[in-house]
């Protein structure tokens, strides 16, 4: 399709949903190699099968590989083109895939400066994400707690965190959450922030300073109920979901619930355990064949678990929008 300047496209012509801003979902993790791109690609496939119109965006800037998980050639335009040419919109660089309803904005042919995105360019991408013509825009973010990652994650309506049952991955997931909450709370109004400072400096009844986010929020709610409520609401906006990937031991299947509980106790924040994906040796093999796993192995346990997760995400979204 020839690139068309965006303002000439009548909103209702392309797709009934295109008039509305898309839902933005982000996938990120504290540690690399836990299956972010694999999960993003296959969630995308599973959502497209539920008749959702999707655009996957590879924002793992500088080490993009979502195209490989989807089994397509790196081709055509990429984010660099969008950033450097004002007439190109994000819709223009979204490449159709073999799966109906699923497009990809790849980072494969980005230039070498992409990993260190300046603030203005980051804001430009974030602004345009919500104008993409789709039901859901799914972001594949880089590992770690760089501001770029955290800020894109906060921009999203919903966050998905894969974790593998290994100490390093679990530790870094908490690390990621701490950084995320910290960054999120910085957006509080100035007066609230001053009150926050006071509470953080003050000593508790036991003579120690506040150590957990949960006790900080409790102290806030006790002394300044309105501000405490504001902070809780602000954290709840994040709508976090956890996926346990590569579950091998029977005990691994319980890691998700345990982390959900610990997150509630220590961060007073809800981290919804979405489900687990069983360890499967055929995953690297399918990647080598360059096929999306879900299409190559539709009967596998992994595929079934993905379908369950997607169903529960869609249901959850429906309840949320009904409440709003």
């Amino acid at each position, binding site marked *: 399709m020839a690139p068309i300047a965006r303002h000439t496209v009548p909103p209702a012509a392309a797709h009934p949903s295109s008039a509305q801003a898309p839902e933005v979902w982000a996938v990120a993790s504290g540690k690399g190699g836990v299956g972010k791109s694999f999960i993003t690609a296959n969630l995308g496939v599973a959502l497209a099968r539920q008749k959702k119109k999707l655009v996957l965006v590879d924002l793992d800037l500088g080490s993009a590989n979502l195209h490989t998980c989807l089994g397509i050639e790196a081709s055509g335009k990429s984010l660099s083109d969008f950033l450097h040419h004002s007439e190109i919109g994000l819709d223009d660089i979204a490449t159709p895939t073999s799966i109906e309803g699923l497009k990809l904005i790849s980072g494969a042919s980005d230039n070498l400066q992409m990993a260190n995105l300046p603030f203005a360019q980051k804001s430009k991408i974030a602004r345009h994400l919500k104008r993409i013509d789709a039901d859901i825009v799914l972001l594949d973010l880089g590992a770690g707690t760089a501001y770029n990652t955290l800020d894109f994650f906060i921009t999203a309506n919903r966050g998905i965190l894969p974790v593998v*049952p290994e*100490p390093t991955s679990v530790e870094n997931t908490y690390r990621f959450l701490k950084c995320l909450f910290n960054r999120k709370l910085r957006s509080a109004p100035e007066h609230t922030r001053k009150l926050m400072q006071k509470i953080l400096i003050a000593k508790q009844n036991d003579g120690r300073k506040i150590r957990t986010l949960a006790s900080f929020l409790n102290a806030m709610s006790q002394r300044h109920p309105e501000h405490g409520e504001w902070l809780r609401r602000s954290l709840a906006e994040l709508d976090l979901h956890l996926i346990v990937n590569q579950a091998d031991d029977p*005990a691994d299947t*319980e890691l998700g619930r*345990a982390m959900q509980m*610990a997150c*509630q106790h220590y961060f007073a924040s809800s981290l919804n355990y979405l489900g687990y994906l069983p360890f499967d040796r055929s995953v690297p093999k399918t990647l080598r064949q360059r096929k999306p796993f879900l299409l190559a192995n539709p009967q596998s346990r992994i595929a079934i678990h993905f379908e369950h997760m997607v169903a529960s995400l869609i249901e959850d979204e429906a309840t949320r929008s009904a409440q709003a």
Partner: protein
Amino acid sequence: MTSHKSDNQPDYYAELQLDRKASQIEIINAYRQARLTYQQDALATYSLLGESDRQQMLDRIEEAYRILSDPELRKHYDEGENIEDAASEATARHDPNIIAFRPARRQHSPEMQWRIANNETFEGAFLREIREALNISLQSIAGSTRIPLHYLQAFENEDTSDFPDKAFCKSYLGQYAKAIHIDPDLLFSRYRPFQE
């Protein structure tokens, strides 16, 4: 947010992440889940909290379970009454296996070590004695190994007739042996039902 919460009364439902209408079985499951979450070296929490915080958390969970698992105490609590007086008389009603939480020992006493080394035949009762000396409940072994409780009880009652076959039985017995810190091979060769 919860509807009633006095300043000195903690929110036991939030502690176990339960709904106010939770059934008895949901309470037991949530309690089991919470115990797994904060057990020693648990993957989900070891990096979040130190040993004293972990014990504190377990105490809070025990307390929440003690109140919510007792229909009468729960009723008092739900009505916002002070439960301390009612609680002390209710403690006696409880199953000590589920309620009492004593830290498990990781080593046998010297005397027990000697008896384990020199006992030619391990009877079920002896296994129970070893386990109880370590302060380990069958429930906690069931929790960490995922072996159904009745199989573990069967080992201590020397009733292995329920197992589908011997390989199955042996595999579970090996895990049980590790849980009470004895060598599985030693137990296989000396466990009385196996000697017959």
